[in-house]
């Protein structure tokens, strides 16, 4: 599904974010990318979103050459990917309901679909009682659950979760991981970056370990080992 071929990202001589990374992620996988801060995890996922371009090498999403995408096609690509971030990236002037409705409007869903699907997905992440709250009226865990609801609402083929538990306590972290696992069980590919040992060990699926921009381990059913 996703193919990195000899991808490097060099900002300048002293700052190499990615160093000759080659890896493949197949559909339906749950991949955890682990490593210290600055290991290149976020740069790697940004390349999938075309939020960053490689200095050399190619990144493919199926047959799409991501760095070469035009603006219009970029929008189309992003609609196939759901994203969850450490800082949630919710629309602060929109309610929980509107945040999700916006993502549906963006892909051109009808008002009827929005009205029926939004309450449903909010129920799925246990936020039915916060439907008309603004993000700043919700806790960190609730905001992240809302972000996940937004990420899955359009049934994307891939979910990218970049440090989704970085700002959360242990209980909320556990909940988020359970939700992500459930999403993966339903067939969606999940790419998770984290430096939380507990999270990785509890998932027990493929783990890619990065250090200084290089992939140093790639285990089928791995643990957090550095």
């Amino acid at each position, binding site marked *: 599904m996703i193919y990195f071929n000899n991808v490097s990202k060099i900002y300048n001589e002293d700052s190499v974010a990615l160093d000759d990374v080659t890896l493949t992620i197949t559909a339906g996988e749950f991949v955890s990318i682990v490593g210290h801060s600055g290991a290149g995890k976020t740069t790697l996922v940004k390349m999938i*979103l075309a*939020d960053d371009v490689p200095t050399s090498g190619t990144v493919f999403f199926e047959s799409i050459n991501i760095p070469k995408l035009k*603006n219009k096609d970029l*929008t*189309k690509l*992003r*609609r196939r990917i759901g*994203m969850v971030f450490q800082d949630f*990236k*919710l*629309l*602060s*002037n929109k309610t929980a309901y509107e945040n999700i409705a*916006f*993502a549906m*409007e*963006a*892909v*051109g869903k*009808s*008002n009827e679909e929005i009205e029926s699907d939004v309450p449903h997905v909010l129920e799925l992440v246990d936020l039915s009682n916060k439907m008309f709250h603004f993000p700043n009226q919700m806790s960190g865990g609730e905001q992240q659950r809302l972000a996940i609801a*937004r990420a899955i609402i*359009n049934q994307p083929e891939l979910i990218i979760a970049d440090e989704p538990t970085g700002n959360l306590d242990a209980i909320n972290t556990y909940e988020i991981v359970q939700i992500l696992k459930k999403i993966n069980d339903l067939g969606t590919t999940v790419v998770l970056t984290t430096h939380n040992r507990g999270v990785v060990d509890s998932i027990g699926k493929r783990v890619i370990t990065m250090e200084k921009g290089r992939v140093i381990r790639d285990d089928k059913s791995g643990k957090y080992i550095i």
Partner: protein
Amino acid sequence: MTELKRIIKAGFVNFSRSGIISWAAVLVVTITLSVITAIILLQAVLHFSLDQIKDKVDVAIYFNVDVPESKIMFLKESLENLPEVEKISYISATEALKLFRERHQNDYPTIQALDEIKDNPLGGYLNVKAKEVSQYESIANFLKSDNALVLGSTSIIDKVNYNQNKTVIDRLNNIISGAQKLGFLITMILVIVSIIITFNTIRLAIFISKEEIGVMRLVGASKIRVRGPFMVEGAIYGIIATIVTLVIFWPMTAYLGRNMTNFLGLNIYDYYVSNLIQISIIILLSGVLLGMISSFIAIRKYLNK
């Protein structure tokens, strides 16, 4: 269609939720529109005054006493064919005498002298009014030239008072064109300054939403879906600012109309009320376009991701 409805709705929702930022933007647009309205009114006063001054300028062609009226009428017709001439009025010798007597009715010695002469000592004259003050010179030259059209006309003309008035006319001409140029320059400067201020305020308002714009793009919203609501917001600034401006100028012009009409020579309130529709359209268009274009440009920077 649904897309457009959603964009417009989002614009209104964003406007009401942005609270103080929205109202700050409205305030700045209101100031800009007030400047434009004030300039419209000032231009009206300026043009009115200049027109009045211009109206007072004319050139009289005095004829010798014994010139037959037919010759004068012939000259009048040929002058009327000049493109520069706005209007010509003929005052016959008899009328000239009547006007002279009226003007000097309290000047007893003059009237007495006139009575003693018995004959009418005055000739008829033509009052020539040009379209522009600067055109009197060419009319005077035409009269001097004695061309085929007005053969022998120089012999019947006693004097043309253009040469007497030349300095005054020239100076007036300079003042008028100077005033118009200065008015235009000040207008342009004020308009440009207010546009820059408005643009920057709207840019600040959008800068605050920088993160949101990035998130919307990441969620997969098209450019127009992100940009649209901001442009709608810009248009709302313009519409509200127009209403506020029109309301502010109502009592202001009423006050000026009551107290300054003599000084300005023009009742500003009457002018404002009778031109209300045109003024509304001008400032509504300026306000809405200013708001929408500023938003359009300001958001461009954050969209290209």
